[in-house]
């Protein structure tokens, strides 16, 4: 069909019928838009560079590829928002194609042709280009319409920026400015797309007599359909010529305005999200940043303590609200929303670091002022990492919170109850105010002796942990685990009086000096022992020994008890003759399921015990924290407030005929038992540790220690 014409003629003549002054004016305005854009980019970069250099973008190329893969697949954007993720990909690919298309035209017309005379935007390439860009426009509009529908009609709570921890009248109460910006963004982009199609259509009507244009019209299907509509409405070539000129300018100006405003509006997320994803630290949820405890100051007390990466993180936030929804503190009515924390810091950075000159004094971050982070906000965090895990753009809220807590600890800005715990930890290495000598007392309830790993070599060194050692309820589980290991013929030992808390919660509460002292002492002790691997029933201990000790010279092979049990059952070393006829559900501990990819082994164990496992609504990496983490187990929840564990217990109670809520962490056990009572579900189902179910399936219940053991236990475990 084509080659009635010279392929060179099948193209679009740029600035067709424009007087020279008009084209010149366009170029001048275009250049001005680019200058405004570049200035905005520079002020943003200057803002980030006012933070501490992190080096988070190296190694550069591997990080680029990783980021490109994440962006192209939309992997993180689709999580827990499938439809929005899909629509975003239409907008993204539509916008990207249109942007690349425009760039190709610029490349030919303004660079290659003037310099080398080379042209390629004609013939088949031009026609394919037209078709692809028409499709891209459709995708863009469809995606934008869905987003408008989502904002207006779905009215998702996660998109409501109103802050439960502020009152009406507070300047940062509902952030209505953000809402207006969201809509301005959607309308501007959709107007650019629509006027693009109208412009294309009016050009076709105008040039309908020109065969090199009209004969190939169906390569622009949307434009051509619109052109027929215009014709049907009585538009002739002359009127179309005028309309085309008007639309050309309107579309062009809107597009240039959009470009100029990119660095000053939410549109900047195109770049900031990519930069943030590139800098993402995959260990951020496992390992808190190491601080120099001998330095002048510690933690983040002023905004310039933040690294350039975190400052970029703040600008990358798209307010998608996934963290707001996932946060257990927020869900229970505590004054913390990870999103609001990020947005407050962003506004603080915009107010203070965006200008040519820096403010005179230090930019304090913690306090009660507008856009400052209140200390009760920081103390609400359970360090469950749900925010870090779900953030589609790689924002690392948790290390920022821990860094700010470090400064609060140093200033003494915290609940006096915590002081008692920290003093107990300083004095005797446990959080429960118990003496060192009491730590191994639970072993007295066994009818065999556990090896002392300090003095004799063992195959498996069991790091018992604080709650498992001292908490009367957890001691039963600890004893059960000892009996299981004994029955399985494992050569194991413990550290007796010399074990101290591994320090996971100490570090997350912000007492970095104490954490490092505990880590050093524990590592020194462990390095003096002979063992081939370690095990612990406490996911917090597991996380810290596995992920945080290597940095301090402690490299050990450590398993969580559930993984070890799964292995022993699979290898036939633990016979489970008793079939358990329970309907159970399983609560993933944050530090196992979400933070350390340990969601599968406990489920495998349950499958082998014959129980009927019904899953909770929020499982695995989306598990809902029991509320214990980050030192919160040491602090009382105000009686008027819901506890995260109560919400979780209510979730479990939705399961009809539930017999047992299975937990897999001493702290979860403690919290969930309270949560079941507090939510009015006492007596409806029991809370049991996975280890207790295994013990029951092994038929170990009822021998030597069950009844006597309990009595002795009660005495041993009574508060001093």
């Amino acid at each position, binding site marked *: 069909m084509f080659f009635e014409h010279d392929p060179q003629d099948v193209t679009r003549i740029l600035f067709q019928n424009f007087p020279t002054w008009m084209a010149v004016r366009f170029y001048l305005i275009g250049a001005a838009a680019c200058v405004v854009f570049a200035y905005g980019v520079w002020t943003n970069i200057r803002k980030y560079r006012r933070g501490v250099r992190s080096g988070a973008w190296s190694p550069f190329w591997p990080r680029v590829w990783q980021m490109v893969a994440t962006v192209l697949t939309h992997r993180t954007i689709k999580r827990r928002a499938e439809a929005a993720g899909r629509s975003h990909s239409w907008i993204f690919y539509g916008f990207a194609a249109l942007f690349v298309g425009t760039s190709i035209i610029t490349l030919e017309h303004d660079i290659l042709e003037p310099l080398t005379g080379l042209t390629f935007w004609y013939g088949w390439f031009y026609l394919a280009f037209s078709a692809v860009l028409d499709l891209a426009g459709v995708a863009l509009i469809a995606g934008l319409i869905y987003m408008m529908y989502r904002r207006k009609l779905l009215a998702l709570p996660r998109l409501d920026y109103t802050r439960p921890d502020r009152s009406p009248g507070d300047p940062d109460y509902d952030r209505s400015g953000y809402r207006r910006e969201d809509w301005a963004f959607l309308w501007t982009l959709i107007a650019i797309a629509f006027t693009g199609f109208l412009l294309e259509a009016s050009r076709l009507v105008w040039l309908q007599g020109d065969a090199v244009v009209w004969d190939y019209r169906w390569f622009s299907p949307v434009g051509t359909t619109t052109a027929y509509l215009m014709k049907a409405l009585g538009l002739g070539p002359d009127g179309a010529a005028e309309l085309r000129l008007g639309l050309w300018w309107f579309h062009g100006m809107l597009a240039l305005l959009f470009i100029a405003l990119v660095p000053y509006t939410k549109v900047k997320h195109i770049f900031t999200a990519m930069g943030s994803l590139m800098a993402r630290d995959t260990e951020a949820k496992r390992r808190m940043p190491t601080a120099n*405890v*001998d330095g002048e100051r*510690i933690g983040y007390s002023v905004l310039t303590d933040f690294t350039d990466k975190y400052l970029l993180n703040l600008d990358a936030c798209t307010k998608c609200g996934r963290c707001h929804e996932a946060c257990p503190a927020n869900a229970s009515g505590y004054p913390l929303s990870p999103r609001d924390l990020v947005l407050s810091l962003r506004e603080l950075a915009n107010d203070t670091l965006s200008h040519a000159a820096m403010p005179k004094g230090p930019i304090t971050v913690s306090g009660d002022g507008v856009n400052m982070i209140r200390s009760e906000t920081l103390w609400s965090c359970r360090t469950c990492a749900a925010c870090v895990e779900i953030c589609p753009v790689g924002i690392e809220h948790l290390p920022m919170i821990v860094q700010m807590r470090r400064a609060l*600890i*140093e200033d*003494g800005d*915290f609940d*006096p109850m915590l*002081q008692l715990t*920290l*003093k107990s930890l*300083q*004095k*005797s290495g446990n959080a429960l105010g118990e*003496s*060192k*000598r*009491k730590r191994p007392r639970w072993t007295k309830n066994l009818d065999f002796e556990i090896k002392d790993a300090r003095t004799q070599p063992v195959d498996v060194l069991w790091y018992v942990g604080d709650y498992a050692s001292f908490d009367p309820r957890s001691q039963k589980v600890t004893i059960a685990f000892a009996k299981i290991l004994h029955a399985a013929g494992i050569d194991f030992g413990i550290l007796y009086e010399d074990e101290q808390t591994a320090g996971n919660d100490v570090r997350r509460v912000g*007492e*970095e*000096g*104490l954490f490092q*002292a505990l880590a050093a002492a524990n590592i020194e002790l462990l390095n003096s022992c002979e063992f081939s691997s370690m095990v612990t029933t406490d996911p917090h201990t597991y996380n810290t020994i596995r992920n945080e000790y290597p940095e301090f010279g402690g490299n050990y092979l450590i398993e969580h008890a559930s993984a070890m049990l799964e292995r022993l059952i699979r290898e036939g070393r633990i016979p489970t003759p008793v079939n358990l006829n329970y309907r159970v559900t399983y609560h993933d501990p944050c530090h196992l399921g979400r933070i350390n990819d340990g969601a599968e082994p406990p489920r495998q164990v349950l499958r082998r015990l014959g129980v009927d496992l019904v899953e909770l609504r929020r499982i695995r990496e989306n598990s809902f924290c029991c509320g214990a983490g980050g030192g919160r187990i040491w602090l009382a929840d105000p009686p008027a407030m819901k506890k995260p564990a109560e919400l979780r217990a209510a979730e479990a109670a939705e399961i009809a005929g539930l017999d047992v809520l299975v937990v897999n962490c001493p702290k979860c056990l403690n919290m969930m038992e309270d949560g079941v009572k507090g939510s009015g579900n006492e007596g409806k189902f029991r809370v049991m540790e996975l280890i207790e179910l295994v013990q029951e399936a092994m038929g170990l219940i009822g021998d030597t220690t069950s009844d006597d053991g309990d009595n002795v236990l009660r005495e041993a475990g009574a508060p*001093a």
Partner: protein
Amino acid sequence: MKIMVAVKQVAFLDDEFEIRDDGRDVGEDFFEKDLNEFDHFSVEQAMLIKEAAGGDAEVVIVIVGDEDADDALRTALAKGADRGIRVWDDALAEADGIAVAKVLAKLVEREKPDMVFTGAQSADFGSAVTGMALAGFLGWPHAAVVSNLDYASGARTATLRRELEGGLEEIMTIRCPAVLSIQLGINQPRYASLRGIKQAKQKPVDELSLDDLGLSAAEVAPASRVRRMYAPERGKAELITGSAAEQAARLAEIIKELRGM
């Protein structure tokens, strides 16, 4: 302007313990040591005065004890005190509150503070005597168990409140310099982070002997001596429930048991 705060390292007993072979104290293995609870409050009070004066006051922590007591001293220094003094001599091994007060009196002569704080008592022996004995040796005004204090750095008098028996409180004005023993709850002591305690190692600490203070071993000989320490046999209690007849029957049973019938 200078405030001197005398602190003590006290022992916390484990709930299972053994008495030393000589029967005069608990075996060393059975307690953990820490800064006296009351001293957290006296140090805090000094720090509040220093801070209210815009830092224009020196807080000196003094302690009588061996090297082991450095931990307690550093905890106090980590709260923001300026420097420390530790006095030790083997002759002080069995020092009682009076002997310690003699040492402290020499330190006061040496340092010439404008105010001296002690804790109301020590958490382990609880004699509550050191502060008042010190005031006695010095001939200074004194007040014990102070639960509220209004004193500005360098002022000639201080106004304070004390809790008395029977729920009474008294408010008094005292001429300075004075010795005040500080009650729990007078303030909210700040936390000394472990990092702060480590960094407090950089702060100057004078280590003095009895000689340095011009004291002889005889002068600090304790006025009292522990003869024996033991855990008294525990009494028993039982709540008797049931009808009057059942209660009477159980009571009779217990009486028979106790009388060995």
